[in-house]
Each structure stands twice: as structure tokens, then as C-alpha cells.
């Protein structure tokens, strides 16, 4: 609360132009953070889907008949060649062969990392939003004051 009061006093000392700049900057940063949060949410959903797909695949016995997607719209009947291992795309064109439990563990680790990042960003975003809102309130008050004095 003390820091909030301090920032409020700091904002009150600023001129109208400075307050406008602070508010604009704050809004811009909040928008960027919201975009990042949205991207993290999407990535988390993708990894959760991957984790559940791995879980489903591990339950299928080797030699089980499945339809394999060879392109986005072409499927052929095939049998599962190796139900114990999967290839995991770790980015920049690298693929690592992992066992099913390792694959699941990799997905879970990634999900946890993204969730912790999400929480941190959410905290930062809410702080930035508060500062921008405070600047907006003070700006409105100052503009009213200027109007009444003129």
C-alpha cells in the first residue's frame, strides 16, 4: 500500500503531458502483456492436448490398427509400429526420441513452466494496469481543474 501511495504522489507531481505519456505507455505495455498471456494460454492448451494424446497412445497395444494422417486430408490404414516411443519436437528442427513416460513428463514440465510464467505475467500486467488507471484518474482530475480555473 505504501508503494501505491508513493506512486500516487509521484504521479500527482507530474504535468498533464507527462501523465498522458505515462497513461499511453502503461496502456501499451498492458496490451502487449495481454497478448503474451493469450499466447501462453494457447501454448498451454496445445501441450495439454499433446499430453492427453500421449496418454491415449500409451493405452493402445503395439500392432493396433489405426488411420494414419499422411497429409492434412489423406489418411491410410496402418498398424502402430512402436507404442513405447515417441518423437518430441523440441524446436529449431530438433526431434528427440523419448519413451511414453518421458514424453508425458516433458509435456507436464512445459505446462508447469508456462503456468508459472503466466502467473508472473498476470501479476505484472495487473500492476501496470493499476498504474495506468491511476494516471488516468489523476489526468482527468487535472483536466477538470484546468477547465474550472480557465
Amino acid at each position, binding site marked *: 500500500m505504501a508503494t501505491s501511495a508513493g506512486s500516487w504522489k509521484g504521479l500527482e507531481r507530474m504535468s498533464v503531458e507527462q501523465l498522458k505519456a505515462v497513461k499511453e505507455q502503461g496502456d501499451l505495455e498492458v496490451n502487449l502483456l495481454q497478448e503474451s498471456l493469450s499466447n501462453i494460454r494457447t501454448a498451454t492448451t*496445445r501441450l495439454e*492436448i*499433446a499430453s492427453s*494424446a*500421449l496418454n491415449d*497412445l500409451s493405452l493402445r497395444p503395439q500392432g493396433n490398427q*489405426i*488411420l*494414419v*494422417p*499422411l*497429409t*492434412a*486430408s*489423406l*489418411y*491410410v*490404414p*496402418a*498398424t*502402430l*509400429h*512402436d*507404442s513405447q*516411443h*515417441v*518423437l*518430441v*519436437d523440441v524446436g529449431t528442427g530438433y*526431434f528427440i526420441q523419448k519413451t511414453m513416460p518421458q*514424453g508425458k513428463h516433458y509435456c507436464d514440465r512445459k505446462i508447469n513452466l508456462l503456468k508459472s510464467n503466466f502467473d508472473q505475467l498476470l501479476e505484472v500486467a495487473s500492476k501496470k494496469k493499476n498504474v495506468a488507471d491511476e494516471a488516468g484518474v489523476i489526468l482527468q482530475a487535472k483536466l477538470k481543474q484546468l477547465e474550472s480555473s480557465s
Partner: protein
Amino acid sequence: MASSSSESAVSERRGIPGAQFVEDVQTYLTQSGLDVGSALAFLQERLQQYKVVEMKLLAQQRDLQAKIPDIEKCLDVVATLKAKKGTGEELIADFEVSEGIYSRARIEETNSVCLWLGANVMLEYSLEEATGLLQKNLDNARASLEVLIADLQFLRDQVTITQVTIARVYNWDVHQRRVQQAVATTAQD
């Protein structure tokens, strides 16, 4: 110079109205029965309509340009399966289970493939039927793309003509005002 616009211009193409090239602004305004403000407003509106149609056509073009490589890829896969058909050799393929996760499958000699047609419909075709259907789809997509490119070219020409017409009408109006101003000045003198 008697005619207000060139008669050789295409009147329309696939629902896109052709733009008149105005040779003589005075005659054009007289024939259309519009004043300068109304003529400019009409031309600006027409320009906006062209822009909207262009956006739609560009979206269709993007869709087709994404679709064609996919169909070609499907044809390549079917051709590979056909080639492997008599050999008794099995095909090992890594397929995407989910985004970023791949598994390995063994494709034994197969006589059919399943094609996803959209709208939650998938049909099983023999390799020959699949090749025929995909080839037909590819030809149709390429033909559509050619027509679309021609439409876009036509549309861009109409946009250019309309923009030139707007500029000419506006400049003519400025010129007329200057003439009137000059006449008024000389009359005062």
C-alpha cells in the same frame, strides 16, 4: 472528343462493374446529370466497393494457394503407395499424433486411402479413384486460381481508372473555379 468515355472498355467481368475512362469531364458530368460533388462522391463509393471486392478475392486467392500444395502432396503420397503396391515392401511413417509429438506407424500393402472431404465427412477410395479425384480437384483449383488472378488484374485496372477519373474531375473543378475567379476579378477591374 465528343464522347465522354471510351466505348472499348469492358462493361463488367463476373459481376464486377467496369469503370468508365472519362476523356472529357464536362461532357461526362452533363451526360450523368451530376454536379462535381455528387460525381466525386459516386466515384469514391465505387472505389470503396472495388476495395471490398479486392479483399474478398485476395482471401480466396490465399485459400487456393494454400490448397494447391496440399493436393499435390496428397497426389505424391498416393503415387508412392501405388509404386509400393506390388513389391510387398512395408512403409514406415512418422505421423503427427499431436502438435510437436510424432509416433511411428507401419503401412502394409494397401489398396485404399481415406480422404477428408470436410464438413465432418471422410470417404474411403481405391488408389485409382483417389488419384482421379485429387487430379480433378487440382485441375479445378488451378483453373479457379487463374480466373481469380485475371479477376484481380481486371479489378486493379478498374481501381486505377477510377482513381484517375477522381483526380481528373477534381482538377477540372479546381480549374473551373480559377477561371471563374479570374473572370470575377477582371469584371471588378
